[in-house]
């Protein structure tokens, strides 16, 4: 890869709690809550911010150019401000953008704000409107599909696949139960596995209600600074090493007799290659992954981490994705626990950065976290991968 013009560190993180509704505050107030937490966390004031990057989906809350109204709470008044939206990947796009804006030298300190108040709109309807209005909109069912479940059951056998997906789901819930900000914390136990596998209501095929992500309200804010400023302003900045974004064509036309390489696999392959990482499971100490359903989450571990055959199932079955495993996945509980869409993909690098800082709270991984991976998902199976580091000691390839 080309050499980065200058290094960029995360110096502040703020999150609201995530919940199914927040009638006690309007959108601008919700944004403001997360902004205040991030400023407090960074121990700076709005005066230190040069530029704000904002993102959420207009048609989820039915507000056109919502950054205008949100300026009441975002702190953008008098400052440069950009607005970037890319669907589910929005939060990750904002992080990549903030990284570029700071690395470019155009701004020293950039604050990224991702948010959604899904309660204020109709989420499945909003997602359905993503499809082409002339044809596909009539066929779409929101983001619900069991294609991955069907393919996994075909490949690994029905029982093993269903057990693995439910084990993944329960693991995520166990992590969510530790995270005080998580929206859904069911308190699921492994002894419920078989029961849930068979009785949780079906949404589509073997995609059951319990497998699917929530619809949440909430906002996440991250503050980024140049190396010089980050070191001066912050005791333990977390460094953004690299990021990659991979989109694919307009339609879900990829379920033919031959399947193309998934963007997840492509993103991992390119990113690891250009950073000289040959064994991502070994290299990374945590992976915060955008997992919209248990089936997708489990399947995508194989794609992102460049695993073969049933390696991902084995790692799960052996507890290697647990908090004390080889590569803990989603200590935050992931997206099946909390899903404020425009913020969701920012929660991933935010939670990963907190793991590196060592102040993630009850869901902190016990062993030292030096290298973190975070992913975003959106559009027609688009992927973003972001690499975060504790130390500025990586080797340029």
């Amino acid at each position, binding site marked *: 890869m080309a050499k*980065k013009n200058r290094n960029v560190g995360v110096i502040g993180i703020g999150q609201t709690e995530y919940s199914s509704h927040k009638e006690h505050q309007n959108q601008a107030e919700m944004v403001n809550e997360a902004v205040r937490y991030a400023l407090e966390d960074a121990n700076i004031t709005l005066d230190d911010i040069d530029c704000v990057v904002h993102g959420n989906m*207009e048609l989820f809350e039915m507000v056109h150019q919502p950054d205008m109204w949100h300026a009441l709470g975002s702190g953008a008044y008098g400052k440069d401000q950009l*607005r970037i939206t*890319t669907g589910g990947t929005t939060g990750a796009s904002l992080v990549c*953008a903030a990284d570029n804006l700071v690395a470019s030298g155009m701004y020293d300190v950039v604050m990224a704000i991702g948010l959604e108040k899904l309660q204020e709109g109709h989420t499945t309807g909003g997602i359905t409107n993503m499809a082409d209005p002339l044809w596909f909109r009539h066929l779409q069912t929101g983001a619900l599909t069991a294609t991955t479940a069907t393919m996994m059951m075909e490949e690994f056998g029905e029982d093993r696949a269903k057990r693995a997906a439910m084990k993944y789901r329960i693991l995520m819930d166990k992590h969510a139960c530790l995270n005080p900000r998580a929206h859904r914390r069911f308190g699921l136990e492994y002894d419920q596995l078989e029961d849930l596998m068979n009785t949780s209501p079906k949404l589509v095929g073997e995609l059951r209600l319990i497998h699917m992500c929530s619809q949440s309200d909430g906002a996440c804010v991250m503050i980024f600074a140049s190396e010089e400023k980050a070191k001066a302003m912050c005791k333990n900045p977390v460094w953004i090493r690299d990021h990659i974004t991979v989109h*694919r064509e307009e339609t879900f036309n990829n379920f033919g007799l031959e399947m193309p390489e998934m963007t997840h696999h492509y993103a991992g392959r390119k990113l690891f290659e250009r950073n000289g990482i040959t064994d991502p499971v070994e290299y990374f100490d945590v992976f915060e992954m955008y997992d919209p359903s248990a089936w997708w989450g489990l399947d995508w571990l194989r794609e992102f981490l460049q695993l073969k055959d049933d390696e991902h199932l084995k790692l799960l079955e052996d507890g290697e994705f647990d908090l004390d495993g080889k590569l803990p996945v989603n200590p935050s509980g992931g997206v099946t626990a909390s899903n404020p869409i425009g913020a969701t993909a920012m929660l991933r690098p935010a939670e990963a950065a907190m793991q590196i800082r060592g102040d993630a709270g009850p869901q902190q991984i016990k062993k030292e976290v030096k290298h973190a991976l975070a992913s975003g998902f959106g559009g027609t199976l688009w992927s973003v991968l972001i690499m975060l580091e504790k130390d500025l000691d990586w080797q340029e390839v």
Partner: protein
Amino acid sequence: MKRVAVCAVAQHKCDSNIWQKRFQGMLLDVLEDIKEQTGMNFSEEGGVKSIVSASDDVFDARTISDNGMTDVLGAHYREEEKMAQEGLNGLGYAMSVILSGHEDAVYVAGHCKESQGESRNMCTNLSYDPFYGRAMGLDYTNVAALQARAYMEKSGLTEEQLAKVVVRAREWAAKNPYANATKQVELGEVMYSPMLCDPIRTMHAYPVSDGAVGFLLASEEKAHEFTDNPVWLTGFGCCMDSYFLGDRDLASNFALKRAAARAYKMAGITDVRKSVNLVEVMDCFAYQQPMWLEGLGFCGDGEGGQFIDDEGPAKYNVNLSGGMLAGNPVMTGGLYRAAEAVLQLMGKAGDHQAADVNCAVAQSTTGGAGQFHTVLVLEK
């Protein structure tokens, strides 16, 4: 600081009703145009791997509307970010993608079909909070009228001066093959055109427009692969004002002055009147041309009216494209401004080419009554 090159621009001709194409069709024309000019490709080795789009979900009536554009942006298995603001910010962001070292070439494309929805005012009404602003019936037209009144009082801007702005815009538009409203008009016609939203008359307002526009940006090292006649992006700044109209001094140009100051500082411009010899402003309504020019520093505070009579717009080569008044869709208002500036700096502006242009400013605005402004400096 390193420089970012614009290697090529492509504009779709604007029209009030491009019924025969989906927005994808307009963007495809633009993509082909850029490819033809530069040989741009999207290969993994050496091709363009980063794309910035600019559009708006409400105008597109489609959630995450860039999903429908991946194909025509060349973004299949590539990076694409959607600037959900007026597109000039997309150029600013694309600059950072290159200056950061992340990528060495970026394709930027914006579009908007104002004709698709029943009313663009219904779209912009949705930008106000649902409790108060929306219920009041605020939209970008009637809010602009409040600002027009405030600025006319501040600057003494007259009906005749406003009419001059419109007449001149149409004259230049006639020479621009991409402009929408090219019919010539006379002062009296403008001055007595029906009132749209007092004091804004129908002919003071830009026509409903559809269009798309594209840019190929590259690092200084990479640019020669695409062109031997690059234009440099040397300054960028933007700024947000308050949301509630009552919190703002509508005639003050608060956000524009700050955005301009930042862009000029980045470009090393200390005296804009000496350094800049071409200006493109996003004048959705006639009063905005003198007001934005004032905010950009081309005349003193409250002197916008006199500036028109003093032939200021001719002196600084203002809106030789015809400007917004000649009709560009709102989400790409600034991108069309920048495209014109690039053509002028490249010497490719044809019938409306100005002489000896070496430094240009393009400006755009988002939100009601200029709540948000963006300024881009381009140099030869």
